[in-house]
């Protein structure tokens, strides 16, 4: 048997290469026979193997050798091919069961044979030492066969011939050698297997240790006690996500570590925030910041698993919260949450596959005007989720309420509400700020001394309040309380002031933004602001109204002051002292109208003020002295041209006439 011998030799060599410190000879020493087979023996062998010598030619032998060689190659190839073919899991299982059944069968057989042997010996012995034999005898045997019914006698062996003896010893020697060889092969094979196993285990444990040294919590899996797992999830997350934060560390055949996350999707998914304005996407959050790199090391895998889990939880919690916010205009679809925060501006949240999104070209994103907003929202919701986790820990550490049949509700986290409130508040504050800015620009260009101050987000204080909460928590808490901003300013006369507080609540009883005015108009003590205003347009109208009211009163004071001090001719168009000025009165101050009666003609002159965020216009018009102004009065002088003057918000202050000058011009009394 040349081929197995060479195989085993190879094994020995490889074993020696692996461990050359100590070698135990496992194979039986094969002593080379000194004497060669005698020729007659050879001839007899050839005769039995090949028949007559005549059939044995060189060609036939060569052909036979080649044939054998080929066969050997083929079998070698086959052996090489079958090895890498992968058996799939079910086949593997079947094979496993079959092998197991075989082992069981062999074991049963062995047990049976051993029992028979024991019974046999016991029965045999029961004649001589019945007591002892009785102990080892099986019950069936005891029932079936009486004790001592088997006897053994020493029989003299038949004398065999010398040649037969030699044969027997040669055969037994051959069998022995064979068995020793087989045993040695098996031992060496298992040694090799063990060696591989040990190196694989070493590699596995080194990697596990490396994971542990990085600070990950490595523990036993609760459901599979013999497997190791790594905890990467968040302990304070909702139980579903908390339990998913554990993955087993499995060893593949070569000993390298793989992270087995069970049924969790392997592809990283990220929550994407987009801002849409008038149907166009104008901003998208950066996605790669929230996902660990796509490396192949185990650390990267764990980080990626953690990030994916966090993103999943984030979206889950957002959806949960969005469901209760349906009445506030939050819409949810299968994989999308969206709400409107300003005029035509929407925020959209969805989960995207990171791999897919990198291959996609951002074709739908036209401009990046809201990139910062999208990023800020993306960061904001993540910070808020972490804050919710901290609150969970805090709640968990408090003494629990008594057990009761009622299940404790799991409140929705504050994620969308603060974000929505902030965006909404910001929108209102900015719009009011720009509105006031434009209106005050008009007033200043008309030469009026007035101004306003802003206190945006005055409710948020960054100083830590208590010792127990950390700075971060205090920072976040500021955004969870109702947001408040305030504006205050003087109107036209410095004595008249107004202040408005904008408040945005994120939760019931009154979610949304409301404006609270307090005004101080000495000329109109009975004018009071409405208690609660929610609409931006309403507020703007109200401010316009306030300023108009104040303008009417200030105009009436301009002329009265002038007529009381006629010598004061500072302005260019100052009236000559000989001519009297009209005295303006405001019977309809609410409409921005002033009336004056000419002392010369007795006619009435009307001055109307119209103010908008774009311009301020003053018009004057003579009205007929009689109550029929519509009828043209014949025989009179033609009407003087009605005066009209406009200041626009784009005007620079100082370039235009002052309001007082225009009023004085308009107040000239004429016939």
């Amino acid at each position, binding site marked *: 048997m040349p081929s197995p011998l060479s195989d085993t030799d190879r094994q020995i060599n490889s074993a020696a290469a692996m461990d050359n410190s100590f070698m135990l000879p496992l194979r039986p020493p094969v002593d080379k026979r000194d004497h060669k087979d005698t020729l007659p023996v050879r001839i007899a062998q050839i005769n039995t193997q090949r028949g007559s010598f005549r059939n044995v030619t060189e060609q036939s032998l060569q052909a036979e050798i080649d044939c054998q060689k080929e066969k050997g190659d083929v079998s070698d190839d086959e052996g090489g091919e079958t090895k890498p073919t992968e058996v799939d899991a079910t086949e593997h299982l079947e094979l496993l069961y079959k092998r197991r059944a075989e082992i069981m069968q062999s074991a049963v057989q062995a047990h049976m044979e051993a029992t028979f042997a024991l019974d046999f010996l016991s029965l045999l012995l029961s004649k001589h030492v019945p007591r002892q034999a009785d102990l080892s005898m099986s019950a069936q045997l005891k029932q079936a066969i009486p004790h001592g019914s088997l006897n053994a006698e020493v029989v003299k062996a038949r004398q065999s011939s010398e040649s037969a003896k030699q044969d027997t010893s040669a055969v037994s020697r051959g069998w022995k050698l064979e068995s020793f060889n087989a045993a040695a092969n098996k031992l060496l094979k298992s040694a090799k297997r063990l060696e591989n196993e040990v190196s694989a285990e070493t590699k596995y444990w080194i990697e596990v240790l490396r994971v542990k040294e990085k600070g990950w919590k490595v523990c036993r899996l609760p459901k599979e006690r013999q497997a190791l797992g790594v905890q990467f999830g968040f302990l304070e997350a909702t139980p579903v996500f908390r339990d998913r934060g554990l993955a087993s560390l499995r060893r593949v055949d070569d000993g390298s570590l793989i992270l087995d996350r069970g049924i969790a999707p392997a592809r990283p998914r990220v929550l994407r925030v987009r801002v849409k304005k008038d149907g166009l996407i104008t901003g998208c959050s950066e996605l790669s910041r929230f996902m660990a790199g796509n490396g192949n090391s185990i650390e990267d895998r764990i980080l990626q698993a953690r990030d994916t889990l966090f993103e999943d939880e984030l979206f889950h919690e957002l959806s949960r919260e969005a469901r209760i916010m349906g009445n506030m205009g939050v819409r949810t679809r299968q994989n999308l949450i969206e709400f409107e925060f300003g005029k035509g501006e929407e925020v959209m949240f969805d989960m995207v596959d990171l791999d897919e999104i990198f291959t996609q070209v951002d074709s739908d994103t036209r401009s990046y005007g809201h990139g910062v907003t999208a990023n800020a929202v993306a960061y904001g919701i993540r910070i808020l989720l972490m804050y919710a986790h901290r609150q969970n820990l805090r709640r968990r550490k408090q003494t629990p309420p008594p*057990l*009761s*049949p009622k299940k404790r509700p799991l409140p929705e986290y504050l994620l969308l509400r603060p974000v929505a409130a902030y965006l909404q508040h910001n929108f209102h504050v900015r719009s009011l700020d720009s509105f006031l800015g434009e209106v005050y620009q008009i007033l200043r260009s008309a030469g009026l001394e007035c101004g306003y101050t802003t206190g945006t987000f005055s409710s948020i204080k960054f100083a830590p309040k208590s010792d127990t909460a950390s700075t971060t928590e205090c920072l976040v808490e500021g955004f969870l309380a109702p947001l408040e901003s305030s504006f205050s300013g003087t109107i036209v006369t410095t004595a008249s002031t107004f202040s408005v507080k904008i408040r945005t609540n994120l939760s019931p009883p009154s979610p949304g933004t409301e404006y609270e005015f307090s005004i101080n108009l000495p000329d109109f003590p009975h004018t009071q602001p409405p208690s609660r205003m929610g609409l931006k347009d309403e507020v703007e109208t109200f401010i316009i109204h306030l300023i108009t009211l104040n303008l009417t009163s200030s105009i009436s004071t301009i002329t009265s002051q002038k007529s009381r001090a006629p010598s004061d001719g500072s302005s260019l168009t100052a009236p000559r002292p000989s001519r009297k000025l009209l005295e303006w009165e405001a019977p309809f101050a609410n409409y921005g109208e002033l009336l004056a009666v000419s002392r010369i003609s007795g006619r009435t002159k009307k001055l109307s003020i119209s103010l908008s965020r774009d311009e301020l216009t003053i018009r004057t018009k003579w009205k007929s002295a009689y109550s029929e102004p519509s009828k043209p009065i014949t025989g009179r002088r033609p009407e003087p041209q009605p005066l009209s003057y406009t200041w626009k918000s784009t005007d620079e202050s100082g370039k235009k006439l002052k309001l007082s000058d225009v009023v004085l011009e308009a107040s000239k009394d004429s016939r």
Partner: protein
Amino acid sequence: MHELLLFASVPGQQHHELLQQLTGLTAAQPTHRLERHLVFKAYRRPGSVNTRIGGSQDLQAPEIQRLTKMLNGAMFYTQVVGPVTEKDFGSVPLSQFTARSTVNDKRPAEGDQGNWYDFEDQRWRLEFRDIPEPGARTTVTTRLMANATLPRGDVLTPMNAWGYSFVTEYIMEGDVFIHNDIVLFLYRVLTFPADSHDPQPPRQTLPALREMIPLDRSGGYVLQAVVIVTDGSNPEIMKLASQRLLGLKEQLKSAVKLEQADRLSLDTRVK
């Protein structure tokens, strides 16, 4: 309300290890707790509630019946518990502190570093515990309990008015862990050192913490696991609570042996 309890005694050497094990189990750091326990004893029966027995028209609601039975039954020891901090130990009373600081032109402001203990501002909680329920129905100790908040400061006057006299006081020191619905309290009892202090009224000041003498001189601790249930008559919830406790017992089996306490050792009745 009812509470279900299991106890284990923990040798001093095991204390640190058990703290760590419990921290791992609950996945949260413990809260250190220091409490003053004033023991009061009832000396007269509470005013009897009018129980008109006889006459089927006047059947009482079961709660009233239970209350009546409780009030007119045995008299009990109750405890008044006040949370204190480590800073309160070995500090001077507020009166002395202010007296001293006025000399130095200093006032005890909020968050002042000075150590002072204001007995008049001490918060109190009245704790009533019934004798554990008899019978080996479950393998946990079950007893009726009730807590009530008392006004701050001097607690002796109202308690006397309610028919309780002050017996003694001690300090409980330990760490609290929360494991789902179970409160784990690993504590030891500290007694006051024998000094010249009059033992009758509760102390106005507390001696330094290191001067306190542990009741168990060997330095042992007690681990107490409690679940409180709102309705002790609801068998489902009681079963759930005791299952939780027994689950914890099984979980902690290799660390400590939690078991039911002897009923009579927790007897709070006045004899």
